[in-house]
């Protein structure tokens, strides 16, 4: 698409106006559809923490499939709604939750990661760093807590660092499958999400999810997390 070609990867990454929707939206019959957002770095840029093979599959296959299926579900929903077909509308909710959630979550995930030379792994400074020390004792303690909860999650899901924008408190939460963080609390805003679906790590770490969790912190983009936090807790 010509519009997308005008945007560089970095511009896309910096365009916070895209919000949680990630990729560029286009209009068709008044229905907004979605497309796969570009990564703000090369597939191999997060090695050795996350292999290039995983990044490419994860982005080009898994995330793309969520986008494709989300768009399909939205079209079907649009149809069902215009026909007033209530059972069909209700039946589509799980497809929307799975695929829309997958798109939302992965769009955040790519921004949560950064190559080491772009600041990946650098601990948070400023107000987020202070809030972490206050709520968890230290960044290390937070990391241990998130790793423990991520490792203990049964099946597929995510482990999150979020901020409750009402209470102005940091929280650690897990969600199953592709449930976004907001399903755990309407005022929760995701700062960092770590994908613990097996596709996120299996080719490299096999069954040893704890090793994946230990290593991913080397490429976590605390800068982005701080930006989101400062927006919610100015």
């Amino acid at each position, binding site marked *: 698409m010509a519009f997308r070609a005008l945007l560089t990867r970095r511009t896309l990454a910096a365009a916070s106006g895209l919000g949680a929707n990630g990729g560029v939206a286009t209009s068709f019959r008044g229905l907004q559809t979605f497309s796969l957002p570009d990564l703000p770095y090369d597939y191999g840029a997060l090695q050795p923490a996350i292999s290039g093979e995983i990044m490419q*599959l994860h982005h080009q296959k898994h995330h793309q499939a969520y986008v494709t299926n989300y768009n399909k579900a939205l079209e079907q929903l649009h149809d069902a709604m215009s026909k007033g077909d209530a059972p069909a509308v209700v039946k589509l909710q799980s497809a929307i939750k799975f695929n829309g959630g997958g798109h939302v979550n992965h769009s955040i995930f790519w921004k949560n990661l950064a190559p080491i030379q772009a600041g990946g792994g650098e601990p948070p400074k400023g107000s987020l760093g202070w809030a972490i020390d206050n709520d968890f004792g230290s960044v290390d303690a937070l990391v241990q807590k998130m790793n423990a909860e991520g490792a203990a999650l049964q*099946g597929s899901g995510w482990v999150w660092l979020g901020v409750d924008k009402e209470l102005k408190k940091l929280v650690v939460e897990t969600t199953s499958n592709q449930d976004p963080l907001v399903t755990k609390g309407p005022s929760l805003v995701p700062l960092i999400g770590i994908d613990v679906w097996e596709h996120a790590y299996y080719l490299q770490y096999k069954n040893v999810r704890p090793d994946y969790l230990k290593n991913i912190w080397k490429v976590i983009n605390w800068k982005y997390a701080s930006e989101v936090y400062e927006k919610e807790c100015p």
Partner: protein
Amino acid sequence: MATATVAATAPLSNGFLLRRGPNEGAKSARSLQRTKNQRQSASSRRFGAAVITAKFDLKPPPYPLNALEPHMSANTLSFHWGKHHRAYVDNLNKQIVGTELEAKSLEDIVIQTYNDGDLLPPFNNAAQIWNHDFFWESMKPGGGGKPSGELLKLIERDFGSFEKLCEELRAAAATQFGSGWAWLAFNPRPSDGKELLVVKSPNAVNPLVLGYIPLLTIDVWEHAYYLDYQNRRPDYISIFMEKLVSWDAVSAKLEVAKAQAA
């Protein structure tokens, strides 16, 4: 249509889509499975007053780890059986030490810790042991082909055709979101006369907990196929149906199920 996702189905809070079986079903399922007690090892040694017991063993597949090549690699088996399945066994043994569960069969532990959907901590490990034991038995080297005899007769009666069954099984396996399993199961007390049904279940849940008798399963947790097929779950499912599934094993399990339901 004997699929478990017809309109009469009520989705349970844990997402397990299935027709509800009567409560008596669960009881008969438990007694049916007691024959499997033979599989358990009660290797215990006494040291003075202390009893050291490894209650459950890691049962190997009924074929060498490379026997399913090239459809399911030895590499996959070495992790799937050697690491994942082994971990469920080790972890359950640790979890049940000193509890009343130690005295129970694996099936009893599964049903008791399912706790009507309010899962107790040992459920995940117990059910996953059961599920993986069953999964290895659902495959064989040189598998695939078509069922025959009584099994084929019932399939044609309850699904219309073998092709229709395959379609439903593939669809269930492909659409189980996240981690889980797809099953062919036997309902000992069908309200509509259809004894065979296809079900899908999330994470560790299996048809035992609702009083059905599993006949066949395909594991669709990503670890089951990712090394060989990456994201291509539909390809994995196709190969499972065409090259791996052991209809002999399904027939044998059907015979047991029918005998005990009679």
